[in-house]
Structures are given as structure tokens and as C-alpha cells.
């Protein structure tokens, strides 16, 4: 590798072609650039004005109740938050799901639909790394979406003088659970968006997988619990990302109630299913990007 500039024939005059002899970053830096660009795009930053409307509107809607809770807690001096951190995310799950459904196509459909994926894959990043970075962008965007109201609640709790160590423990549990949920939801909506390239279909698909499916699972869980079929109720929770989240939160004492407590071997099953689901979605994404990239 030499730093000596090479003379190329014909490159003399001013307006001629200029070579680039500067630094070329390694794969890690390129991957980070892709990740940050993707994260910004998930919120419409660096894109058109109207792409910012949806993500920020949803974010505002998910923050508003937290602001009200904080106001009430601070003014009335309650001895505890009326809702746990982890449960707040659960209660605003419709907004989280909508954010994921609406923004996943931005990161997972566009490159495939317009085939710019080919231009990415002809560059240093490999298909697996590209898929991984896209997934991380959406996951972090989702995590941020959930973390903002969570942190607001925590600030409120601190302002009203609630016990700090209790609150920090609850907060950290919630953040860990939200991280897992973000990875899970990003994988599911990402995979759906990479398969159904029409934005409308992708959004509908994600809504089905997150909102409709969760509704069905919740109904089955409720009926089973009512019929004292506890095992069925807990087992049904394995079939939707939100019931996995609430189940694990319940098992971990993070302040979320489920129809039937999740305990014993079920905890392991929930954790295992969540991780397998994440891994499966990632493998699916890599396969999908590789296939379209070679066409």
C-alpha cells in the first residue's frame, strides 16, 4: 500500500477527472453510517417534511398520557406511580405497533422495491450486515419511542420524591424488556415489509401480526383463564410479541398483570420463543436481501 500519488495518463488539465486518494473507512464505520441514516429515516429526519408527521404524531400521542401522569403525581404527592414503567408500554401498545407498522417499510421495502439494494450489495457491506443494520435502526427507533415516556415517568417519580432504588430497579427491568420487545417487533415488521413491498400491504401485514394477532391471543388467554384452563392461557401467550412481553414482565415482577401468572418452566419457554423469533426474523431478512440483491 503506497501513499505516493500515481500519475495517470491524461489527467493534467484543471477540469479533468480528479482521483480520490483520501481515507476509505472500514466496514464497521460504513455499517455505523448506514445504521444512523436508517435511525434518522425512521423518524423522517433527512427525508421530506411530510415523512416526519406520522412518527412524531405517534410519539406525541404516546408521551401525552405520561405527561398527565407526571403532573398528577407531582401535584398530589402520591406515594407511588399509578402505572408501572413496563405496564405503560403495554397500555400504549397500539401506538408502538402503529409506529412499527408505519415505519418498517421505510427501512425494509424501499431498497428492495426500487432495487437500490443491488447498489448497496455491490459495496463493501454484505447482505447479512446490511440486514442487521436495518434491523438495528428500526429496533433502536422503536426502543427510543418507548423509552421517552418511560424516562418522563421516571423524572416525575423522582420529582415527587419516590424511593429512588425501587424506581431504578423497576426502570431497568422495563428498559430491558422494552429492548427485547423492540428487537422482536423490528424483526417481525421488518420481515413483513421486506416481503410485501407495496407500502399498503406491508402496513396491513404488520397490523395483522401485531395488533390483530395480539387481540386474538388476548381473547384466547382470557377465555382459557375464565375456564380455569391455566396452561392453555399461558401457552397462548407464546403466539404474539405483546403477550410474550407481558408474560416476561409478569414473571420478572416488572408490574404487569397477566390473566394467569407466568412462572416455572413457562418463563424459559417465553424467553426461548422470543429469542428464536428474533433469530428467525433475522435469518429471513438476510435470505430475502441476498435473493433480491442477486437478481
Amino acid at each position, binding site marked *: *500500500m*503506497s*501513499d505516493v500519488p*500515481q500519475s*495517470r*495518463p*491524461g*489527467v493534467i488539465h484543471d477540469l*479533468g*477527472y*480528479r*482521483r*480520490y*486518494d*483520501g*481515507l*476509505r*473507512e*472500514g*466496514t464497521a*464505520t*460504513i455499517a455505523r*453510517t*448506514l445504521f444512523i*441514516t436508517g435511525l434518522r429515516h425512521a423518524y423522517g429526519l433527512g*427525508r*421530506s417534511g411530510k415523512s416526519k408527521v406520522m412518527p412524531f404524531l405517534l410519539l406525541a400521542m404516546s408521551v401525552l398520557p405520561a405527561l398527565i401522569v407526571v403532573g398528577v403525581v407531582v401535584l398530589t404527592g402520591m406515594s407511588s406511580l399509578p402505572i408501572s414503567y413496563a405496564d405503560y408500554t403495554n397500555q400504549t401498545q397500539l401506538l408502538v405497533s402503529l409506529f412499527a407498522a408505519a415505519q418498517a417499510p421505510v427501512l425494509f421495502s*424501499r*431498497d428492495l422495491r*426500487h*432495487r*437500490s439494494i*443491488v*447498489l*448497496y*450489495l*455491490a*459495496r*463493501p*457491506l*454484505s447482505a447479512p450486515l446490511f440486514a442487521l443494520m436495518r434491523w438495528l435502526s428500526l429496533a433502536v427507533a422503536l426502543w427510543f419511542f418507548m423509552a421517552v415516556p418511560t424516562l418522563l415517568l421516571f423524572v416525575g417519580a423522582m420529582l415527587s420524591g419516590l424511593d429512588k432504588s425501587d424506581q431504578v430497579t423497576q426502570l431497568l427491568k422495563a428498559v430491558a424488556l422494552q429492548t427485547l420487545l423492540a428487537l422482536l417487533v423490528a424483526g417481525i415488521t421488518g420481515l413483513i415489509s421486506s416481503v410485501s413491498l407495496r407500502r399498503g400491504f406491508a402496513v396491513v401485514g404488520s397490523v395483522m401480526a401485531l395488533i390483530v394477532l395480539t387481540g386474538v391471543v388476548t381473547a384466547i388467554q382470557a377465555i382459557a383463564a375464565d375456564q380455569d384452563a391455566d396452561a392453555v392461557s399461558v401457552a397462548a401467550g407464546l403466539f404474539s410479541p405483546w403477550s410474550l412481553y407481558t408474560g416476561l414482565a409478569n414473571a420478572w415482577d416488572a408490574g404487569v398483570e397477566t390473566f394467569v401468572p407466568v412462572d416455572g418452566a413457562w418463563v424459559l419457554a417465553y424467553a426461548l420463543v422470543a429469542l428464536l423469533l428474533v433469530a428467525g426474523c433475522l435469518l429471513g431478512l438476510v435470505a430475502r436481501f441476498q435473493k433480491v*440483491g*442477486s437478481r
Partner: protein
Amino acid sequence: MRFVTGELTGLAPVISTAGLTKHYGAVHALTDLTVEVGAGVTGLVGANGAGKSTLIKILLGLLEPTGGHARVLGHDIEEASEDIRRLVGYMPEHDCLPPDVSASDFVVHMARMSGLGASAARERAADVLRHVGLDEERYRPMGGYSTGMKQRAKLAQALAHDPRLVFLDEPTNGLDPAARNDMLRLVERIGGEFGIAVLVTSHLLGELEQVSDHVIVLDGGHLLRSSATGDFIEHTGSLLVEVVGTETERDLLGEALAKRGLTCRPRGAMVAIDPPPTELAHEGAAFDLIRDVAAELGLGLMRLQPDRRHLEDVFLDGGAAHV
């Protein structure tokens, strides 16, 4: 290798393949291809389905070959695909531009995806967009571009990171004659003035001859031939000669050349000369003879060039042999 500041390839071939094969089930897209590509412009010619795009995708590591080996810029395609992709540019044959982004933003982003920093990427994008001839339009969303402008934007992203080699897959596809000519001139400049090796494909058999130093002809996944553009002319080609004056001068030259053993016939204002007989077939002999005869007759030579149609003839002749 993380940081590359542009080494010399020396005399090593830019691309070399050995027995490269790609089969899709029963479809034999590429069969036992062994070729070498050097600096300058290399045309990769063949009818639709000949395997041109397949070859490029294998060299880029986007497709895995069923058999054989290849090296690009000294790197093995299987072991060092990432290193190759740092050093090459690729202009695909199909649409690959997001419609809601401007060419300027897009080329900057693609330069960064090749490892350039933010400010270097902006500078390079401005440079290459100027070179490909996208001016004010570069700030408009690419969805509104004409085919010619899209092809230019696609070319710009391929050049954004100052590659050592570019793969241009059918860059003239869909262009009108004027835009096609502009694109061919650009290709020629990239291989010459820019000093970037070019592998450019076309399904139009005669088109690339004007700008290529070397031509590879594929037919049904098989190598038909690979040689310097000049060699095509020496071996098989006819020549076209034009002298200053009218038909009288044209015929004067034709008759004189016929007496010296060349088979001539008039074509328009020019004399078309059949492939020279063996005693005149060695390098440059026919050229020298024509020049001397014209000088003896006191005729001014306006043009002496290979007959452009001959590449197609090569293809057709060779193709027949495979059937």
C-alpha cells in the same frame, strides 16, 4: 485490508477467470469461461441471455458460481469479495434509483456506503455528477428524470468512490441515438482520461467496438472470442477507405488497389475492401499498402478505418459454429 490508497495493478490482468461456470438448474448461463481483461475499455458483447449480467454479478460476489475461479484486481472472488467491492463500481442494467431522492443526495449516500467520509463524499458527488453531465437536475427527485438522466445518475453512483474498475451493464439501453452517443463517449473517457478500467456490456453487437480496446464475445454462456479490437480487424475485418474528391477519385483508388491484390467494391463515397489475402494479412500490411497507393496516385486520404459492421459478422460466423 481496510485502507486502500490505490495501488498499481502493474501488468497483472484486471479480471481473470478460469473455467467460470454458472448453471441455474437446466439453464446454462455461463459455461467454462476463461478470459482475461486488462486496463482500458473492454466490451462484453452478446445477445440477450448470453450471460453478460451473470458474469458481472459473479465477479461482484452477488452470485455464486457453480464452478471455476476468478480474480478481480488481484483478489479472489470467493475469498476477498469485500475487498473487490471496495475497489469496483457497478452500474446495473435495470432501474435501481429511489424516485423520491435527488441524484445529489443519492450519490453522496452511495459514496459514504463505499467508505468515504461525509465531506469527501459531497465533494466526489459534485465532481462525478458534473462529469456525467447532470447539472441543475441533480437537486430534483430522480423519479422525474428521463431515461438518459437516470442512466447518468446510475453511472455517477458507480464512479462516486473513484473505483479502479467499473462494471457498466448495458449503459446505452433505452437511450435515443444522441444520448447513446454521449454515453459511449463517456465510457471512452472513463477508460482513457479517468484511468478507470471498464467492463461494459451491450447486446448490440457493433456498438462497443468504437469505444473498446478489447472485445469479449459471449454466445449462450460460451466464450466466442476475446481479443483486442484491432485483432478483430486484422483477422477478419474489412476496411473502409475514403479519399478527397468525387466518385472518379474513389474508383481510381479502387482499381489501383485491386491491381495490388485487394478485393474492392464501392460503398457510398467510400471503397470497401474485403479482408486482405494472406500475404497482406500480417500486421498493418494492408494499411501501409493503401497509404502508399494513395500517395502514388496523389490522392488525399480522408479516412481509413475498420468496417464497423464486421463485429456482427464475427458473431454470426462464430455463432453458426456453435449451433
